[in-house]
């Protein structure tokens, strides 16, 4: 294999990639955009609960509870003002306590509390507000709950260190960057088949093996360079750099294999895009499981990109080590090797 020939091929591919305005713009703007999106996302999780309260007859116990709780309170001057605050979105929910609260407490008669909820508040949060109300009730009556709770944390204990939207989003952005490059490479190869330039290349000293090495190296290293840049700028690279770089390199090799497969099925840019978008949707799915925990079942593990996103997420978020993600890397390596081999076989058939 001639290094000069391979490097000439790779240099040509890089030039052609950026001479295609669509992919040049999508690549550069995408990369910049993803980095901007990352930094626009909150770096910390806001755990303060917003709550409005109308309580003309405030019990001292409640007054004390409010001063201690991590709740952002809004004291309304009237029930109407409370309703308006919820409607305006100033607070997501509000309690309207009766005017004769203290008298009812003394008489031990039933107390009716109005709970105003904004329509976009999820049901889980409604339940949280109801729990708070019960806490208030116990605070008024002074009777403690006769329940003892033991907490058992499954997996890394993230108490006090919640996962920020940025950290959850980073694996998704990584897969996006890889997939844009995957589409670009597939389009490039498909165009070479359609225009017959590949035929011209293969009647030189360039062998079929050399062609695949050139395309494979270009695809993998180009994708790798982009995700490394993303990780470096977002700071993701500084958690176990060697581990992250290994995962990214395997991920880049995986999408290069996918690009070979897409290029072999596509007949023109539109069909490449059609198959490519299907591949993007499939490979992005595992990142949704990170964004919304519990959303996906175990079948998501059948998707190769799961082992990339899971590794990145666990290294960045939980600081896991080589031993913890060794199986992930092994499976990712296997997937990358299988997809590359499969891509080479079908693409070679297409060339011939």
């Amino acid at each position, binding site marked *: 294999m*001639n290094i*000069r020939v391979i490097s*000439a091929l790779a240099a040509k591919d890089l030039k052609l990639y950026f*001479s295609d305005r669509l992919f040049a713009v999508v690549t550069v703007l995408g990369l910049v955009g993803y980095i901007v999106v990352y930094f626009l996302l909150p770096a910390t999780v806001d755990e303060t609960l917003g709550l409005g309260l109308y309580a003309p007859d405030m019990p001292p116990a409640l007054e004390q509870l409010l001063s201690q709780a991590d709740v952002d309170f809004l004291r309304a001057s009237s029930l109407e003002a409370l309703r308006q605050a919820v409607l305006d979105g100033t607070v997501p929910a509000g309690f309207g306590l009766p005017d004769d609260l203290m008298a009812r407490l003394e008489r031990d008669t039933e107390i009716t509390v109005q709970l105003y909820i904004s329509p976009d508040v999820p049901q889980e949060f409604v339940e949280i507000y109801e729990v708070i109300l019960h806490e208030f009730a116990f605070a008024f009556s002074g009777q403690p709950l006769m329940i003892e709770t033991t907490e058992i944390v499954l997996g890394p204990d993230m108490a006090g260190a919640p996962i920020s939207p940025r950290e959850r989003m980073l694996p998704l952005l990584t897969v996006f960057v890889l997939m844009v490059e995957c589409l670009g490479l597939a389009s490039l190869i498909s165009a070479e088949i359609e225009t017959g330039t590949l*035929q011209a290349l293969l*009647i*030189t*000293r360039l062998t079929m093996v050399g062609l695949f090495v050139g395309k494979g190296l270009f695809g993998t290293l180009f994708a790798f360079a982009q995700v490394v840049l993303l990780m470096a700028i977002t700071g993701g690279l500084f958690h176990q750099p060697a581990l992250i770089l290994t995962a990214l390199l395997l991920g880049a090799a995986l999408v290069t294999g996918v690009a070979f497969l897409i290029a072999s099925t596509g007949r023109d840019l539109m069909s490449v895009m059609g198959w490519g978008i299907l591949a993007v949707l499939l490979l992005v799915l595992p990142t949704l499981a990170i964004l919304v925990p519990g959303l996906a079942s175990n079948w998501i593990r059948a998707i190769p990109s799961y082992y990339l996103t899971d590794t990145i997420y666990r290294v960045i978020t939980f600081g896991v080590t080589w031993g913890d993600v060794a199986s992930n890397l092994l499976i990712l390596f296997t997937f990358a090797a299988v997809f590359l081999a499969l891509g080479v076989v079908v693409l070679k058939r297409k060339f011939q």
Partner: protein
Amino acid sequence: MTQTAIAAENLTYAYGKLLAVDDISFDVAEGEILGFLGPNGAGKSTTVKMLTGQLRPQWGYARLLGIDVASQPKKVQAQIGVCFEINNLYETMSGIENLVLFAKLFGVKDFDAPALIKRVGLDGRGEDKVERYSKGMKQRLMVARAFVNQPKILFLDEPTEGLDPTSAQAIRTLILEEQARGATVFLTTHDMYEADRLCRRVAFIDQGKIVALDTPRELKQQYGQRIIRAEVVAADGSLQTREIVLDRQETPGEIAALFEGERVVTLHTEEATLEDIFIQITGRGLVS
């Protein structure tokens, strides 16, 4: 002693049940220009693909410069230049970038791209992107690309098709220059005039078989008729055409009778074209 540049022996290739090339054999001498003529689907492209190592013959063999193409395609390809029928240049790269890329792929050292660009008449346009070239300019660049490695054998597939006379003539001149350098040229063309002017020998291929292979002159003598075509003024004053076939025993008498009995206005000799001969041999035209 003239060496054989291309030797094809019993070359055969079928696409499924369709026999594209059917047991053809021929030789091309070093420095010779061979015209390979035939209608679309006759087997020209498949033959070229086997000769250039793009397809492996299912039967028979091809040797270029004494090297077996099927077993050592890269060794052969390093010494040949191919100009494809379709434009397969990198359109978003400049003319010079296209040539430099292929020079690198061929491992050519000290490659002078501007000189080659100038030689094919693209001087001053080498830095322009190919997508801005006219059809004729692209074709010149395609031919230039085939010259990059100073090949010993050139395969040119319809190099002048669809070009204006000036561009076509420029390419014909380049082909003759390459021949003068010592290159062997395997020219696939529909253009009978071009084949007649450039080729020492022509091969007619039809339905996968070579049906004739000889010099144009020999083919014309063997299959064609030379005629005299005369325009005469008829008794009613109108112009009429008379034809006399040459090279027969009765020809001198017919010519004498023409001049004695008619008022001859114009007189031309005509000989059969390669197209006529192809039709005579195969029963159909070259462009089909």
